[in-house]
Every structure is written in structure tokens, then in C-alpha cells.
């Protein structure tokens, strides 16, 4: 069992901390950056984050010049139900959701992120933003103990979808697989473009955060529950080391995006699917649809791949796929390791309304007894 005291102090001595400090010291100043005073004069915008699978309101094409965009994330350590059988995981989250909320800015904007770790928590936390440059993605400048907060500013220099996650010394994978990962989307200032540089737009975003969980079982094979985060640590780590997850889910829970919570769209609408996995490779696929334009690596200044059936998201990255729905129906959006989709939970449903296109597909003859020749 890991106690709060050990979590706070035990890991702060030793090589890991030294490595962190070295990394901070070694981060060079960027000569091209405007003086701090000038950055301070930029217009500011404060954004209130919304829970996944949705994304806060934003412009697809930037209006005006760079600005400072303020976000706030509050760490919430809390038990969360992760499947329909009521299995409870001692989770760690940013803002209470798995995945953490998506933050959207434009290339050249400054992200100003305040991380709050309330006194009621057990663990130290921080944030490593893959979109940021230096200080372990900001992790070395944001390590906050319970009762502390810190604010980091970084310049969004590269357009694309990027994972962010917690990375406290000695406990990184545990914090990540317990739920602490999210996505920052840095849009090109002039918006998304196809392979010929023509503008692309979306009518809505579905932000699919995929997580895999490692829940210990008791001697009868039933999932165990724990009274606290610290008590879950030892057993969970053993399961994690086996590398075989017990759950692979979208939006934090088996069935989180099905049934009453199924996503909705209409024929003719263009949806940007942003798919993030902070720890493990995955392969999204829209059953009965395609990826019209896909930034598999998530980086918007690369020309998008076209007409994909399945796209590959490397563990520790986020990718984006643009699709215009052409047929109505109930679509399944899955991790096309179908065992993970059907048995472990990685399935979302999209209810799409609209007119059927008989040219694209028609049932020539309905199922009936085999005709005799």
C-alpha cells in the first residue's frame, strides 16, 4: 500500500527528482519568443471546459492574432464505476471526467493552465502536455501537492491533437491508467485543410478518449474494490505489469457512449472524431463508414490521408478523422481489435438520422429460404 506520506515525500528524494531538475535547467530559452512583457499584453480569453465526449465552443478559423487562453483543471481523486456490472475503480481525474476535457486553441496562442490539487486529495499531481516544449511537457513546473495550485503558460507552436497526462515521479503509469489523460487540440490559424490546401470544416466534434484499466480480481475472479486510492495501488500495479487490461473503454466506462448516451448526427453533417489514447496503441474504425480525411498522427500541417477504413493511434498520441455521414442508421465506432470492442468495452454508437441513399446501398432481396435451382 502506498500512503499519502510516501507519495508526497518518498518519491521526492532520489534520482527521479534530480533528473527532473536537470531537465528543467537544460530547457533553453526560445530566442524567437517575444519578451514576457509583450506576451503579457496579448488579449486573454478564459475558457470553461466541458465534459467529454463534447468540446467547448471555439472558432475553427482564428479571428485576430495570438492570445492567451486560460484553462483551469482541478484534480479529483474519486471512485468511479467503470462498467455496467458496477465495478468500481479508484480513479484519478482532471475535472472529474475520464478522459479529461479537451482544450482547443490555435497555433501561436499561449495556453495558460492552472492546475489545482484540492486538500482532500491523497496524491501529488502535475501535467505533461505533449503540445508543450520543455520541462517534461510542463510536468516539472506543475507538481502540486494536495492543497496547492500552480499555473503554467506554454506556447502552442505545433498544430495538431496532442495528449496531456499526469506524470508524477515514480507513479506515472498508475496515474495515467487511473484516468489522468486528456487532449489539447491546436488548430491551424486558418483552420483545417485537405491535401490540396482547401479548407475543411466540421459541424461537430466527437472527442473519444480511450482508456484501458487494470482492475485486480479476488480469488473467485470477481473484481475487487478498495476503500482508498493508496490501498488499490499494490494490487493494481501487479495487474498493470501483466499488460493485459481488464477493461478497454471509451469515455471512462463500458457503455458510456451507447444506449441513452449514444452520439447523434445527421446525414450530410461532417464530424471530426478526435481519438486519444495516452498509454496504449489503438485502431479506431467506423462500422459502415470511413475516414474521409484522417490525420492519423494528429498533426494538422501534414496532408490528411484519405478514404481510410481504420486508422492507427499510437499509445501516447491523439489523432483526428473527418467524416461526412452519407447514410442514416445506427453506427458503431469501435477499436477494431474487436475483442477489445465487444468484450472489453471499446464501442460507441452513433444514431444518424436522414434519408437513405439507395444508390450507395440497397437490399436486392431480403433474407428468405434458399431458392431451388
Amino acid at each position, binding site marked *: 500500500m502506498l500512503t499519502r506520506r510516501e507519495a508526497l515525500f518518498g518519491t521526492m528524494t532520489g534520482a527521479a527528482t534530480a533528473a527532473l531538475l536537470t531537465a528543467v535547467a537544460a530547457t533553453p530559452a526560445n530566442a524567437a519568443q517575444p519578451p514576457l512583457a509583450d506576451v503579457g499584453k496579448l488579449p486573454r480569453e478564459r475558457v470553461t471546459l466541458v465534459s467529454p465526449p463534447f468540446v467547448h465552443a471555439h472558432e475553427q478559423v482564428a479571428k485576430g492574432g495570438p492570445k492567451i487562453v486560460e484553462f483551469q483543471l482541478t484534480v479529483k481523486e474519486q471512485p468511479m464505476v467503470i462498467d455496467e456490472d*458496477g465495478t468500481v475503480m479508484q480513479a484519478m481525474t482532471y475535472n472529474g471526467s475520464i478522459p479529461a476535457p479537451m482544450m482547443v486553441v490555435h497555433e501561436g496562442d499561449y495556453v495558460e493552465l492552472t492546475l489545482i490539487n484540492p486538500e482532500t486529495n491523497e496524491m501529488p499531481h502535475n501535467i505533461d502536455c505533449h503540445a508543450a516544449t520543455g520541462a517534461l511537457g510542463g510536468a516539472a513546473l506543475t507538481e502540486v501537492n494536495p492543497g496547492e495550485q500552480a499555473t503554467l503558460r506554454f506556447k502552442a507552436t505545433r498544430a495538431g491533437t496532442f495528449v496531456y497526462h499526469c506524470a508524477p515521479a515514480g507513479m506515472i503509469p498508475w496515474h495515467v491508467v487511473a484516468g489522468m489523460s486528456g487532449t489539447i487540440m491546436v488548430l491551424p490559424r486558418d483552420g483545417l485543410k485537405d491535401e490540396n490546401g482547401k479548407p475543411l470544416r466540421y459541424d461537430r466534434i466527437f472527442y473519444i478518449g480511450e482508456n484501458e484499466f487494470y482492475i485486480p480480481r479476488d480469488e473467485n475472479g470477481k473484481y475487487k474494490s478498495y476503500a482508498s486510492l493508496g490501498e488499490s495501488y499494490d494490487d493494481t500495479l501487479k495487474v498493470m505489469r501483466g499488460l493485459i487490461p481488464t477493461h478497454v473503454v471509451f469515455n471512462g466506462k463500458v*457503455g458510456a457512449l451507447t444506449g441513452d448516451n449514444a452520439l447523434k448526427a445527421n446525414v450530410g453533417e461532417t464530424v471530426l472524431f478526435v481519438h486519444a489514447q495516452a498509454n496504449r496503441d489503438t485502431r479506431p474504425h467506423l462500422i459502415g463508414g470511413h475516414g474521409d480525411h484522417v490525420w492519423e498522427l494528429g498533426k494538422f500541417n501534414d496532408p490528411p490521408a484519405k478514404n481510410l477504413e481504420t486508422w492507427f493511434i499510437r499509445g501516447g498520441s491523439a489523432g483526428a478523422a473527418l467524416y461526412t455521414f452519407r447514410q442514416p442508421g445506427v453506427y458503431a465506432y469501435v477499436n477494431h481489435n474487436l475483442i477489445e470492442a465487444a468484450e472489453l468495452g471499446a464501442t460507441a*454508437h452513433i444514431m444518424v438520422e436522414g434519408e437513405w441513399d439507395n444508390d450507395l446501398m440497397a437490399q436486392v432481396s431480403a433474407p*428468405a429460404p434458399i431458392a431451388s435451382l
Partner: protein
Amino acid sequence: MRLMIPTMIGAAAAATALMALGTGPRATPQQPVSPVAMVAVQPGSFDFRLPGEYLKANWPVDAPKRKVTFDRGFVMMKYQVSLADYGACVADGACEAHEGASRSADAPVTGVNYRDATAYAAWLSRKTGESWRLPTDKEWAFAAAERLRDDALGLPQDTANPATRWLARYAAESGTEARDAEPKPRGHFGENSKGLADIAGNVWDWTTTCYQRATVDAEGKVEHSTENCGVRVLGGRHRSYMSTFIRDGKSGGCAAGLAPDNLGIRLVREPPTLLSRVTRLWATVAGA
């Protein structure tokens, strides 16, 4: 016939005495059978929506309804077979282990497939000397009474857009309540008007009825049908169809549909027949 009546009464009395002792003629002694609470479903009739899929002029339509009458009624388990009940069958070596998430012995057994359910019925019949079986879909629907959800969509036949029915089916089966698939202690979902507990709760009941696909003519008369007994009907919050070897409804569902939360067992007890009474009496005499 008149001559036989005293014999029948005698046999029935012997059978009753045996039941009171809790030992059937072929019972294996290892595991005692707990008394089973039963509900007598009274005779009656109702409009029954046929199970399966129906096509009219090559397009899916709601299944036709038929008036169904039970002249004699039937006797059904008040509660679903519990984890403890099923465990006794497993301990006797007559049932395979379940795969469900039930936590308390009192909760219904879940994670059982059709073959497990029929194995349990056969075991219980052996233990008690009575005749236990799964209900038919028709019996289940009649017993469910006001908890039966009509699975008709009531849509005008749309020959231009097959997705209309898919979307309507999905929306109908989603319901509006937050889904909680965790099996609950017996009685959690209350009783229906016929006194059956937990019927159409979050554990579906296997029935013996096979899946069928049928074509109907303009008047709704069945022209031909194809039966697939590798897939059986399950009674529950919405009627479901599962392959006989599936134990977890969520795995057995299709990619874009809504599957049952859990699969369980609720049996019907056949009234003793003359033959069964004589057989039991004979076994008793022979064994004595």
C-alpha cells in the same frame, strides 16, 4: 377408468409424502434442494406479438399478433433461480459454473447459457421427481403481464429508408432510465400483477422458443418461415434473441444493438402426469 381412480389417489398421496420428505426416487443425496416459491399463473388469454422477424413484400414489419389462450394456466417460479440454487447443481456436478457478476447467494444466477438453463431444469427434475422446464416465450409473455413491452415499432412501412426501423428499435430499447446491469438481491424489482417477482428486471430469462424469420402476406398471414433453434428467445425488458451457447448477453449482442444486461433462469413446473405418478410410485415400491 373408474377402477384406476383409487390407484391414482394413492400414487398422488405417495408423491406428496415423498415431496414432504424432500427426496425423489432418483434424487442424488449430495445437495439438498431448497423449497421453491411458485406462482400459479391463472388461465386466461391475451394478444401475443409473435417472436422473430417478419417481412412483408421484402421489407421488415412488426410481427403479427395472435390471440393466445391458456386453458389450464401453469405454475412458474416466483423468483429467478438464485446463485445458491444454481450452485447446488454445480456442486452436484450436473451444471457448469456460471460466469455472471452476481455477488450474493440470494441474487439471481447470471452468466448462464441456454444449455446451462436446460441442464439446471433436468437436474432439478431429477432431484425432486417433478418435471421442470424452461417456459416458452408465449408463457413468459403471458406471465409478465403489464411488464411485457410490446416490441412493435408502430411505424408506417417505409420502403425508402431501412434505417428508420433500426433507429426506432435502438431508441426504444435504450429506455430512459440509467442502465444498471449489476444483479440485485431477489425481490429488488418487485412483483407484477400475477405475483411474479423481478420479471423484466435486469436479468433476462431463457425460453425454449426458437428464433424465426417469416414472411407475411398483405393480410398478415404467415406465408413461410425459417426457424433457427441455435438461437432462442429471451424474455426481459425487451425481447432478445441469443445463440444457445452465449452466457454474457453483452458479448452475444450485435455491433450496433442493445444487448440484455444479464442472462438467467426462471422455470415452469409441469403438473404431475398419471405416468409420472405411477413411475414415482413404482420407483418407491421397487426401492423399498
